[in-house]
C-alpha cells in the first residue's frame, strides 16, 4: 500500500515536472522518500528516471544515471547525513537541486531553488503525516 502511494507521488512529480514546471520535482520526491524507505530508493530512482526520460524527450537512461549517482554520493557521506541536524539534509537538498537545474535546465535561479526546497519540505511533512515512523531509515549504500 505504501509502495503504491509512493509510486503515485513520484509519477505525479514526473508528470508535473515534464508538463508544467521546470523544477526538479522528481529529484525532490526521491530525496524525500529516501528518508522513509531507505536504500530501496535506488530502485525507485532507476524507474522514475526512465519514466521521466520518456516524458521529457531526453535520451533514455540520462535521468536514472543522475539520480543513482547522486544517491550513491549521498550514501558515501551518510555519516554526515546521519546527524540530527536538519541543516545537513537541507544543504544536500540544495546542492542536489542546483546540480540538477544546471545540468538539465542550464540555469541557476534563486527563486526556483527556494521554491523547490519549500516543495520538498511540504512533501516531507505530508509523508510524515501519512506514514509516521519513529525509526529513521537512512540511506544505506
Amino acid at each position, binding site marked *: 500500500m505504501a509502495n503504491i502511494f509512493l509510486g503515485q507521488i513520484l509519477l505525479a512529480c514526473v*508528470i*508535473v*515536472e*515534464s*508538463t*508544467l*514546471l*521546470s523544477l526538479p520535482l522528481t529529484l525532490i520526491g526521491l530525496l524525500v522518500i529516501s528518508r522513509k524507505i531507505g*536504500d530501496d530508493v*535506488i*530502485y525507485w*530512482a*532507476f524507474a522514475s*528516471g*526512465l519514466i521521466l526520460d*520518456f*516524458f*521529457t*524527450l531526453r*535520451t*533514455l*537512461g*540520462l535521468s*536514472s*544515471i543522475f539520480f*543513482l*549517482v547522486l*544517491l*550513491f554520493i549521498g*550514501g558515501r557521506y551518510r555519516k554526515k547525513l546521519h546527524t540530527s541536524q536538519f541543516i545537513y539534509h537541507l544543504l544536500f537538498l540544495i546542492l542536489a537541486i542546483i546540480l540538477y537545474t544546471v545540468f*538539465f*535546465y*542550464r*540555469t*541557476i*535561479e534563486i527563486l526556483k531553488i527556494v521554491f523547490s526546497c519549500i516543495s520538498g519540505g511540504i512533501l516531507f511533512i505530508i509523508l510524515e503525516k501519512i506514514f509516521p515512523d519513529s525509526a529513521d531509515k537512512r540511506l*544505506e*549504500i
Partner: protein
Amino acid sequence: MEARSHSIYWLIAVSVLIFILDYSGLLFFVKVPADIVILPVKRGVYGSSVKLKNLLNVFASYPRYHSLVDDVSRLKRENEELSYRIKSLTDENISMRRQLDASLPASYTYITAPVIALSRFMELGVGETDGVKAGMPVVIGNVLLGKINAVWARRSSAILLTDTEITIPIKTDRGAKGALHGQVSDTMFFEKVLQKDPLFLNDTVVTTGEDGLPPNLVIGKVSYIQSDDASVYKQAKIDPVIDRTKERTVFVISSLH
C-alpha cells in the same frame, strides 16, 4: 547489505547501457508505443492547466462583470462588421502577396502542432511521423516562438527564445543588427548592437534570415536599452508580443518553398 551495495552498481551500469543504446538510436521501437500513453496524459494535464488559468482570470475579472457584458455586446456588433471587411481584404491580400515580398510568403508550408507541455521546452504533439525535423522554426502567425530541438515519433520539443542556450541573429526595422540571447527569468536580450546603430524603445525586432530561419519573423519589441559610451556594443531587453503560456496550437514551418 553487500547485495544492496552491489545493486546500485548494477542499476548504474544498466542505466549507462540504456543511455548508450538510445543515443545510438537502437531503442526507437520502445519509444513509439510509449507515446501512445504519454501523449494523452500530457495533453490532458496541460489542457487542464490552461483552463484553470482562464478560470482564475474569470474570477479575477468578476468585479467588472457588468461592464464586461456591455463590452461583449459592443464587440459582437463590431465583430460582424469586421468579419465582412476581413473577407474582402483577404481576397485583396491573396492577389497582392503574389506581387509583393511579404514576410511570410504563401509558399511556406506549415504543420499544425498542439501544445502538450510547457516547462523548459515547449512540447508539441507532432513528431517524425508528421514530418517534423530538428531545426524547423515554430511560429504563431508571423511571430517566432522557437526552434525544434528534439524529435520523437509522435512528439517533439521546441527550444524557446528565452532559453539560455539559444542564440540567433536578429535586427530591428531600423536596420540595427545583433544577436538574440535568452536569459534567466524568461527574458530575451538583444546583444552585440553597435553603438552607431539606431536603437529605440518599441522598435520591432525580427529575424535576419540567417541560421536556417526565415527572414522577418517577429521576435518582440525593445522595452529597455542599456548603453555605455565606453563600450563598443549596447544591448536591449526585448519583450515578447504574445503570451506563449496561453497558446494551445502553434505551427511548425516545414518548408520554405
